[in-house]
């Protein structure tokens, strides 16, 4: 008889545990399904202004190309290599090496801009490193 009582007690305990677990599980599932509203973390991006690219040349023959070093380390090395390449492969193209002025590698150089507007057919600017 004692044995039967214990078995019933254990069965009831298991049932209780199962019911508690089911209830908790149900609540957790409901919480997981609950909808939350959050704010957008982004700032406001500006509109993008499209600029048409410069018209292309029909040929490089007889044209003057300015090679502009902005002062960033090593840019001149690259431009001198480019200058060599033009001399070897496009002898009819004149290249002019210039180092940009101004107080920093990203500063304007109005004098050089004006000179190139007048004399250059094309420009290669190197951002070296």
């Amino acid at each position, binding site marked *: 008889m004692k044995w039967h009582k214990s078995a019933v007690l254990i069965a009831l305990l298991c049932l209780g545990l199962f019911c508690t677990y089911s209830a908790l599980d149900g609540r957790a599932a409901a919480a*997981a*399904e*609950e*909808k*939350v*509203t*959050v*704010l*957008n*973390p*982004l*700032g*406001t*991006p*500006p*509109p*993008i*202004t*499209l*600029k*048409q*690219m410069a*018209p*292309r*040349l*029909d*040929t*490089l023959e007889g044209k003057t*190309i300015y090679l502009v070093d902005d*002062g*960033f*380390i090593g840019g*001149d*090395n690259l431009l*001198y*290599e*480019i*200058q*060599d*390449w033009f*001399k070897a*492969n*496009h002898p009819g193209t004149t290249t*002019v*090496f*210039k*180092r*940009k*002025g*101004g*107080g*920093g*590698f*990203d*500063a304007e150089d109005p004098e*050089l801009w004006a000179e190139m507007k007048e004399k250059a057919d*094309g420009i*290669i600017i190197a951002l070296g*490193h």
Partner: protein
Amino acid sequence: MREIVEKFTRPLTAEEKRTGEIEQSRGPDTFTDTAENLHRMFLEKRYTDFLPIVLPTPERVEDMLKGTSHEPDEIVGKMSPTQTGTYFKDWTYTVRDVAVNAVMAGCKPEYFPLLLAVASTGKEAISVSDNSFVGALVINGAIRDEIGLNSKVGAMGPYAHANTTIGRAWSLMSINLGNCGKVGTTYMGVVGNPMNLINIVIAENEEESPWAPFSVRKGFRKGENIVSLFEGWGVLSAANWKAASWGKEMDYPKIIKDIFDQQGFLFGACAILSPPIAQFIRNAGYDTVEEFEKYLEPAPQFPMGKMAPPEAKPVGEGRAKAAPKAEMPPMMGGFSNTAIIVTGGTNNNYYSIGGLRYGRSVKIDDWR
């Protein structure tokens, strides 16, 4: 080279001829979904630093906004992946936008004026630069203790809630308010920088420093709540340098000078000194930081701002290596890029050295 030549002579495509403006949208003001889906969406949209965030619910953002008297819709500033107004177009942001990111980072409302002060400068913590820069903040004044910033043992590490979450918020602000940190477009750091996660947040140990606080040296009153912003390669223990070998009698001024001479000043040289090291240097005869900085700076090798002569060099093999030393690239600026900060504990004679360049200081109380 053939590609360059082709670009010169190939007619423009219709796409290349386009003009006009493209409007960009930041999307809806709010998102509604289950928490799990929102976490996933924030991750997928790259609104996070890849670590779990606190979801910015209206209630949490409202709580954060209680940390300031400024209106939620007030424009705080503008930011881009490099210094504002240069290569990238700036994004703008409001007090509310800053609050949203502060919530995501886990900040408390009492930190909010400091974050707004940082945001007002427009300085990004995550630069597009291929240098893999990190941002640094130096905080002076009573606010240090008021919000629980750690300035003692472990000062620069993630060992206080304020230091950690404020530094993290600066990165999240940079990502979401300044469009920073998108690899391949707005982030080009060659090897990256793990310090970007919480950046370098330094509350100066003013009491145990033998010198005037950093903010006072920048012209502010002692006790005034000031945050100073820096950018650079970051810091690591001075013991890492060969010049920092241990000796019987340590000549700290000379050791630090030797390290500075090794690392150069291009993007700033800084020394983050524990109070004992600062005291050793003071005892060596440097009554002010300015005197010590003067000792540390090398003799100028290039005239400041001097441009190279514009004429071309002669054609020939080896000329690329023959650039005369007088040709200082104009981007290198001067050498007055030293920063000496005192923070940390007094339990041993350690200190850190690195590359951090000072930018500017702003008043925190303007954003209360």
